[in-house]
């Protein structure tokens, strides 16, 4: 049975959307030249974590699958890169690719099993996988140094590429690598959601039974979403380990399954830029509030409550609903 054609977005709107995303990335590129040092460093970290959230959003926002196990994918990338670098002295480029490959394999395996379930069961199964992964990082403490974690030496973070010496400790380089990764994640998301596969994912989110009836293989589409989402998350994890020289099991804990969910909900699920905005806001919320009061978590909590009241679909979700219906 051939799949029915799905209408492409109107050209004018498409251009506007692409312009916006390119504009945001250009703004981030320019920001490094005007921001004070601390904010440039913070933005580097935020962009990496936002890449994680963008990956999460592909599954949660667009496909409607709520995973509570994304820490597993982030950690697969983190350890996939850090372990060969630490134990075998691999330099950053092959270690990064190893991290992505580890995330791909883990996502494919988890996806193939977890997608046999739906709804709450999917949530629980992904959570269990992630907990098993977290405990594995502790259990194999001789290799991972468990909760204490590993420090990557400067030697693996400094390498020759095309005759140039690349040093990942350089803040400018690190900023632009994080930006490149985020740009790639945003581009992949944009391409996916604007192509037929993306429309099928949204259709699955809205009504899976109907999508099936229309002749789409929903299991295969969902597996593609899990693998893409998991691999992007793993790329963020691998980059985090290599750029910040540390890998520890706290990054595999349940918190790192909740964080991307929180960032995505805050910024707006099923909007390409929502997770980026959510990550940025959460970072500065904690950072600024802790500067004013020791009870900063109360402030963070109150602001989150206010955001939920005024922006029930997340910031960009609500913006799209009220003012900018063309926002992808």
């Amino acid at each position: 049975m051939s799949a029915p054609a799905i209408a492409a977005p109107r050209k004018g709107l498409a251009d506007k959307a692409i312009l916006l995303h390119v504009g945001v990335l250009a703004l981030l590129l320019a920001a490094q030249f005007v921001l004070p040092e601390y904010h440039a460093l913070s933005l580097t970290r935020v962009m990496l974590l936002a890449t994680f959230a963008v990956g999460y959003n592909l599954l949660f926002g667009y496909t409607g699958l709520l995973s509570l196990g994304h820490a597993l994918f982030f950690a697969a990338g983190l350890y996939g890169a850090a372990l060969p670098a630490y134990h075998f002295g691999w330099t950053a480029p092959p270690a990064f690719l190893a991290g992505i490959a580890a995330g791909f394999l883990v996502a494919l395996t988890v996806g193939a099993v977890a997608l046999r379930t739906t709804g709450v069961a999917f949530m629980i199964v992904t959570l269990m996988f992630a907990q098993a992964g977290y405990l594995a990082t502790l259990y194999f403490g001789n290799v991972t140094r468990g909760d204490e974690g590993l420090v990557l030496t400067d030697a693996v973070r400094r390498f020759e590429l095309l005759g140039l010496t690349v040093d990942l400790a350089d803040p400018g380089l690190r900023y632009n690598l994080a930006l490149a990764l985020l740009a790639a994640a945003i581009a992949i998301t944009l391409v996916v959601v604007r192509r037929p596969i993306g429309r099928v994912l949204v259709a699955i989110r809205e009504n899976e039974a109907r999508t099936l009836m229309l002749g789409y293989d929903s299991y295969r589409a969902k597996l593609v979403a899990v693998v893409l989402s998991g691999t992007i998350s793993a790329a963020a994890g691998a980059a985090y380990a290599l750029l910040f020289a540390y890998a520890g099991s706290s990054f595999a804990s349940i918190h790192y399954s909740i964080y991307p969910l929180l960032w995505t909900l805050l910024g707006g699920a099923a909007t390409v830029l929502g997770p980026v905005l959510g990550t940025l806001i959460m970072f500065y919320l904690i950072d600024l509030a802790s500067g004013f009061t020791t009870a900063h978590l109360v402030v963070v909590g109150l602001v989150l409550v206010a955001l939920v009241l005024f922006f029930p679909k997340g910031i960009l979700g609500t913006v799209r609903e009220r003012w900018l219906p063309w926002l992808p």
Partner: protein
Amino acid sequence: MTDKIDIAGATTSTTTADAAGAPSPAATSPGAGATRRDVLKGIGAGAALAAGGLILGPGFVRYAQAQSSAPIKIGFQVHRTGIGAAYGRWYERTTNAAVKLINEQGGINGRPVEIVAEDDGTDPRRGAEVIEKFATQHKVDVAFGTLFSHVVIGSAPRAGELKLPYFVVSEGHHVASTKMNRYTFQPGITDVRSQVISMAPWIAGNLGKKVTMIYPDFAFGYDHRDYFSEAIKAQGGEVTTLIPVPPTETSFTRYFPNIPMDTEVLYHVMVGPAVLTFVKELGEHFGSQRPELFGFIDSLEAVDLASPGLEFLEGTHFWEGYPRYAGANPSAFDTFYREKVGVDANGASVSDAADISTYSHMFGCWETLYVLKQAMEAAGYQGPADKAKLVEATEALTEFAESNEHPQGAKVFNGKIHQVFGSQSITKVTGGKAELVHKTSIEDGMYEPEGDYTTMAL
């Protein structure tokens, strides 16, 4: 062993939802004092203020004073939230007491000392972010005060890259392993390897030579397992059974049958809130026929030894970094230190007898600050341009005499591995209090250096 920042934040938001939600109907309903326009204006003003805060944050305020009178800024990475909060509270009190005293005594190089505290949530990621904030926004002279090993290990690479001297108070072996960097020091508290190996001679000589170890199945437990096994072997004893317990465990009964009948000493080091259950179940398992018990006080820091459920510990022994109970003959230095920090002779807060201190660790903050003072004075430290001189001056330190500045006891500093060595205490629980029975020599805790930081580039 991770933070609870966002989870706790989410929980807080849930518990405060009603309070926060209440104003919204009034803000939008007709006839109410505030309209949606007002609310939006308010949000706009708030955003402008926040943006202002962003731009005019502490990092951008320039000191008008001459550098000679500007304060020396010490970035204090403190566990205010997360699993280390009980320790963090007492680390903060001790630090504030020491800084107050240092300033009363004329500061460092004639300049006052200012503490810039930032919560790291006992989380390695936030820890690294806090280091970046110290270095580039607060522009502190040094960072200081971290306890939990994973936060130290997550933060140290950033401190090294930003060339920010980083003085930790962690007792982990990470600094002495020489796997950190030239800028990371631990000059105020001994490391776990030193603590563990110095216990072995006394245990073998007084409690027994056949040892079973119960320890947490993660890095901190492995340090105990590896270093103690080696040290007791050197004393002619042996660890006959190893019982690692996963950190998520809440009941321990099923592990106890693995303890062999001929065990002479049960060596336990359990950290986390499950320790009360652990002791209670251990009592139920052994009854009155128990082997000798030897434990590390880490699990019972900030916990009253007279708590219900801990009766089984009566007559057992503990390692303490610095005995919580002053005993009959405290040194004048100890009395001075207790008075300044606000701790009574039982190791509790003078204002609340139920608020037990983390006495075996927090002295490290006090002593580290005095080491810092000594090193800065030796280097003639004037400002961030002298950071390399400060590193070298700290590496050149060798000994600290027992004094008001070092109330826990005399110490020897090894500049090559950036680690201090000192004496340890063994106490026995008697009548719900721990009494000192043995104090090790500094040499008992010495080991061969594993590397040399001083050969690394500055």
